[in-house]
């Protein structure tokens, strides 16, 4: 009995050690928040275009029935990281042939127009989510966030935060390739 009690701390330490070893798996990122949307159909929404912009508005039906999966990016002119991310996304659209749709989240239309005029507009369609209602449907935790949506409307991938920096771009590129969101031959 006495031996057993003296051995308990050792046994507890071994069990904790096992958990630690599991936790060290390099693919595991404790900061990653899993999205309940993954492998689920994208929420229904129908957003008007941003007033003062020629780009058409965005609805769920625009995401469905495309030849390849498309990318939905949630952005706002008041969000500083979005500015950095904008350049990366533009490059994906121009060089890799990615199809990009935007949700302009809780943004004053005139600010959004000015922002897109200054930086350029890589979006095919932009829905103006003034109330933030659609953002809630998508389960946003902040801006920017980026989703890859399959042609049947299933959400394949979610990226929280700006796609900026080599690691993030690498992960995003991998996700695009896996989803088949890039035309053949591109992305090399």
């Amino acid at each position, binding site marked *: 009995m*006495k*031996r057993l009690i*003296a*051995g308990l*701390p*050792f046994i507890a*330490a*071994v069990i*904790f*050690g096992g*958990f*630690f*070893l*599991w*936790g*060290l*798996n*390099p693919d595991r990122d*404790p*900061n*990653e*928040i*899993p999205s309940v949307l993954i492998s689920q159909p994208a929420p229904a929404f129908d957003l008007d275009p941003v007033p003062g912009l020629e780009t058409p508005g965005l609805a769920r039906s625009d995401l469905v029935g495309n030849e390849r999966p498309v990318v939905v990016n949630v952005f706002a*002119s*008041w969000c500083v990281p979005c500015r950095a991310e904008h350049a990366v996304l533009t490059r994906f659209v121009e060089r890799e042939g990615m199809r990009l749709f935007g949700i302009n989240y809780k943004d*004053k239309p005139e*600010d959004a127009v000015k922002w897109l005029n200054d930086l350029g507009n890589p979006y095919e369609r932009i829905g103006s989510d003034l109330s933030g209602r659609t953002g809630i449907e998508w389960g946003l935790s902040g801006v920017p966030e980026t989703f890859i949506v399959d042609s049947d409307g299933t959400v394949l991938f979610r990226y929280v935060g700006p796609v900026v920096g080599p690691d993030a771009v690498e992960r995003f590129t991998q996700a695009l390739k896996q989803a088949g969101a890039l035309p053949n031959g591109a992305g090399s």
Partner: protein
Amino acid sequence: MVPEIGHFALALALALALVQSVLPIAGASRRNAVWMKSAQATAIGQVLFVAIAFAALMQAFIVSDFTVRNVVENSHSLKPMLYKVAGTWGSHEGSLLLWILILAVFGAGVAWFGSNIPAETKARTLSVQAWISVGFLSFLLLTSNPFERVFPPPLDGNDLNPLLQDMGLAMHPPLLYFGYVGFSIVFSFAVAALLEGRVDPAWARWVRPWTLAAWVSLTAGIALGSWWAYYELGWGGWWFWDPVENVSFMPWLLGTALLHSAIVTEKRDAFKSWTILLAILTFSLSLLGTFIVRSGLLTSVHAFAVDPERGLYILGLLAVSIGGSLALYAWRAPEMEPGGLFRPISREAGLLVNNLILAAATGTVLFGTLYPLILEAITGDKISVGPPFFNAAFIPMMLALVVFMGLGPFLSWKRADIAGLLDRIRFVVVLAFIAALAAWYLLNGGPIMAYLAILGAAWLLFATLREWALRIRLFEVPLAESARRARNLPRASHGMTLAHAGVAVLMMGMIGSTGWKSEEIVFAAPGTEVTIAGFDITFEGATQVQGPNYIADRGTLVVRRDGELVTTLFPERRYYPVAESQTTESAIRSTLAGDLYTSIATPASDQVNNAGAWTLRILYEPLVNLIWIGSILLVIGGCLSLSDRRLRVGAPRRAKQPASDAVPAE
């Protein structure tokens, strides 16, 4: 050139540590006095070489030597000198070097001052300490060399994380590590005792000063870190139950338990295997902290750059040291003979309850900290455990602890006189209830838990003072006689009184600043007025100012009370262009009664900014300074106890017969 000297010195230190990890312990089993003696020279040599390496790294930071990668990544030529120096331990590599330096300092300390320790025990202890040194020196040299060069050298560095560029935090890691790592020597003593198969009161007495020294600096380090979080992060809280805070708090809780259980081992020759286990576990939790902070296992606001390879290496070190020592414990501890007997109501029983509660509290914090990891491993769900869990589980335990903390010192060893005890504490209990009821009457409002806590704090304070007064027979004999008695009391006894009173003061601060905090968050244009806790605060506007390596927006807040000017506060929002990050410099008007705490932030939208509006956060935290004052009392109490006569002179020798009865009960 200098970095190479540093690197080379580290390699030499490793060589010495390797010798020290084998030779003295072999000498102890073969009774070879020369081999055993060698530990003295190697321990002091180790500290010299590690100090040379540390000085070399510091020199690289001071002259901004941008050929060293670590300096490039953590310094900048425009940084103030103080923070250049502090940058030495601002990174993973540098802080690990500091860790090892302190490890070596404690080893050398035992080699140098431990002339009263028998040669064999000392040799074994220093060998065990050298095992830890070998592990961490090789970790540093193999995976995290602080002296790595870059070519071509950049023109300037990346700057130290600006949040860390602060006086409080510059001093925080050295103190914290001194405590954390200081427990290593206690661990080594414990493993040596297990190898030897013998623990007695003399052992507990050799261990006590080292435990106390480590505990005092850990207390100071945690308090300093908490103070830093309070005024630097701009949230106005002083404890967030963040994993990194928790891992420094767990060794403190268990170290406190160790400090008390070692008293029983010293005075009564009891609790021996328990004391040994606590010594092992306390340092194990320190190691666990090192592991969690550097491996990226959990999410935290302040972790080092994450590298799974390093994590694996430290986990290996943990497996060897913790696994090895606990296996040794499982093997040897049952053979230890039990010590003196005691009745259910006695000093021993009081300290036993203290230990059980502290151990349970440590277990709770450990569980809460690791629960997200365990749950994710088993079910794949991701959750985070926040303050509500810790507050609900931890605070009731601490209240129970406080009851026993006030009671314990009244109890005598072996068997206490219950009637006499009740007689002595009756008055204190009544006084504590009066204090709590008075608080209820005056404050009306606030959480019920807060009043229970006030009751607990008042009980602890009055009981501690009453016990002290009984000892010096205050008001029973003439004052001069009481003063003479106070002078003759051992310093350890004064230390205990001061530390226990410190906890009561600390509790008051915690209760006041959580139970009666008021908070206002406003979007303010110049001219906006805010009223909080009787202060009228006018926002006069913000201006841009230039600092040495930052640009700041400085708000001007005029504080009035009843129309009279109290003070003007200047909270800042600083932007560090090189590190591309921002910090909040809150402005605080501190008084004993409470802190008026203000911070300013950039508004959420540019649109609002154009109108000249800012986000102001204004808090009134009553009694919050008592937390720091209580912490200081704890530290002073610990230092007083450390300077006790029995630890300085009268070299304790291993008695043939345990002579515990000859030791006067305190």
